[in-house]
């Protein structure tokens, strides 16, 4: 069987890749893609803890579903913000959205 460590290492690696994407991408939509990767890494951890812990405790799965809801809300509002900014400022580059600086 697969030991728990494999899942944890995989999810840590996925989280780091997502973090890299969030930090270095210039396009706001691409930043949201990176956030999706990070949320998925979290979900892998939650589900593997459910499987490797006491399976009659459903906390792991319930939290994973809540993360689904959070991811959906985040994407919905985040992309709506991006579209709204694009319509008023004509750009989706995060660096150029600097109205609040002044």
């Amino acid at each position, binding site marked *: 069987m697969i030991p728990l460590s494999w899942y944890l290492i995989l999810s840590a690696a996925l989280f780091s890749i997502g973090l890299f994407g969030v930090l270095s991408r210039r396009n706001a939509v691409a930043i949201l893609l990176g956030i999706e990767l990070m949320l998925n890494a979290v979900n892998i951890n939650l589900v593997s803890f459910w499987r490797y812990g006491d*399976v009659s405790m459903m906390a792991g799965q319930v939290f994973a579903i*809540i993360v689904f809801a959070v991811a959906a809300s985040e994407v919905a509002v985040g992309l709506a913000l991006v579209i709204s900014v694009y319509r008023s400022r004509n750009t989706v580059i995060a660096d150029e959205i600097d109205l609040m600086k002044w």
Partner: protein
Amino acid sequence: MTFTQIIFLVTAAVILGSALMVVSTRNLVHAALWLIVTLFGVAVLYAILNASFLAVVQVVVYIGAIAILFIFAIMLTRREMRDRGPQLNRGWWLNIIIAGLTFGGLFWMLQGWSGFSKAAADFPSGYDAVGQLGKALVSPTGFVLPFEVASVLLLAALVGAVYVAFARK
């Protein structure tokens, strides 16, 4: 090395490879498609973990809805799809170090933990994960509050997104 382990390793390679493509491809639509590959790989992982419900939900929610929403959003903000100029920030090599440090730190913290290489126990006989999940979600001693809060969260997201995206009307 057992059969399951081989499947796991292949899936893990696919997940990590496509995740790298997501953060590095120049073409945004391709990035979204690579994200779909990653998400599908995660669904396969859930299947290996015997979480059937979550595996199916992963496909339904992520590939069926979230990925579609991403592609719609990319096409709505079309200006950046033909990718002129750099797609990464100037200090991207610094971010590689940060990401590497995060991974190293997580790994170092985890490998000191006693349950790190635990093996999974067998399921009790007659175990019904979906039924258990349903009971846990609505029982007053379980997760009834998160269940209702999730509904409010989705409502807030719907109202907020509709308001933000179409404030001009």
